[in-house]
């Protein structure tokens, strides 16, 4: 069936089979491979994207369920060349080791800070408790999110971004 979803701010219309999961729609149909596909069983949280601003596991959402809704992937976090504060925080505090869980962690962090701009450590740990970092780099991830809370978006970025492929292929054409 045909669905129209706003992905990273751009309306995208695609024909999808009802059984296609959002994670595969993003990766395979829209070529937004920043959304990582991990355990496939709703456990690891690697595939987290924002659905209408709330973090969800995209391996447990049907793409057809996003018709008429807004999806934000890690590709949509940066504002042009300016990285989101959570991305800057993960750089500043080295909130990653292998990086596989990072896109989901960034999006969960963004949603947390949108809702609670000054979270304490416990709130940060609870927010990311559905996501597994098998490098067990949680301490630096927590510090990265605290860094982002201390450096909100209106402050100038220290680090320029690479040109991110922020939008699905259709929008670029």
């Amino acid at each position, binding site marked *: *069936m045909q669905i129209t979803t706003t992905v990273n701010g751009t309306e995208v219309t695609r024909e999808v*089979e*009802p*059984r*296609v*999961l959002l994670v*595969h729609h993003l990766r395979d149909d829209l070529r937004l491979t920043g959304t990582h596909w991990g355990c*496939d*069983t*709703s*456990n690891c*949280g690697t595939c*987290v994207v924002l659905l209408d601003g*709330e*973090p*969800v*596991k995209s391996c*447990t*959402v*049907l793409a*057809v*369920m996003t*018709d008429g809704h807004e999806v934000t992937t890690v590709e949509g976090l940066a504002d042009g060349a300016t990285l989101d504060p959570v991305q800057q925080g993960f750089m500043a505090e080295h909130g990653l080791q292998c990086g596989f869980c990072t896109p989901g962690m960034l999006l*969960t962090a963004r949603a947390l800070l949108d809702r609670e701009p000054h979270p304490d450590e416990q709130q940060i740990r*609870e*927010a990311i*408790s*559905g*996501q597994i970092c098998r490098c067990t780099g949680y301490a630096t991830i927590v510090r990265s999110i605290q860094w982002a809370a201390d450096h909100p978006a209106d402050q100038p970025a220290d680090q320029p971004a690479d040109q991110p492929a922020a939008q699905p292929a259709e929008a670029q054409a």
Partner: protein
Amino acid sequence: MQIPAAFDYVRAESVGNVLDLLERHGPEARVVAGGHSLLPMMKLRLARPDCLIDINGLAELDFVVEEPGVLRVGALTRHATLLDSALVGRLFPIVHDAERVIADPLVRNRGTIGGSLCQADPAEDLTTVCDVLRADVLITGPAGQRAVPLAEFHRGPYESACEQSELVTEIRFPVVPRSSSAYEKVERRVGDWAVAAAGAAVTLAEDGTVADACIGLTALGLEGVATEAAASLVGRPPSEQAVTEAGRLAAEASDPTEDQRGPVDYKRHLADELTRRVLRRAVQRASTGS
């Protein structure tokens, strides 16, 4: 890669529309809300519906409303909404206790109270919560609406009183003065199913004795509530001695099975200890009004 088998998908526009669709598509149709129980089962082909009826657009089923003597909660209310609701936390702190340990925040953003109850997993937390709060489940079907006490709603693992042609639309919690409640769960890691859990609701008389109590256990092989354990408290002051006896009776009423989460002795110990803890906390909350 886990992909569900092919199915038809239709987005419902109203409760009436859901009932029409259920009738039209017959026994192989399933209602999907949050989908966090159903979709993993479909990926493993443990469930293989021909048709999914998506009720996520039915805002009419997403509400938390206090009316005299009752809190009405729409079936499509997400776990995250219940956890965020100050009203829910004030009237029924047990709901917040339980919601904090149901899966993880990401799952709670999608999963719904109606879906949890209908899934009827024996280790599901809200069943115990609704049991001890003596909630009613409102079921809407072709013949109209009926209220089913939670004690009669579950017919066994993964089976409920909601027929194929019907939809759970609301859960109603009686609001009782001088009452409070608590829930505690032991899990192996965040988001896991319970090794064991206990819930309790307590009503105090004006003289401070226990006027009413209800105790429920999760994942401990007890169907319904621990009647004798609760009855042992009624009419007595909620002393440590009374709480200890209730814990012992609840553990005796449990019938846990050994599995990868632990042996029988350990689980029975948890039934005892967790019952005592939730009783103490419920009593403390009821007496301080917090």
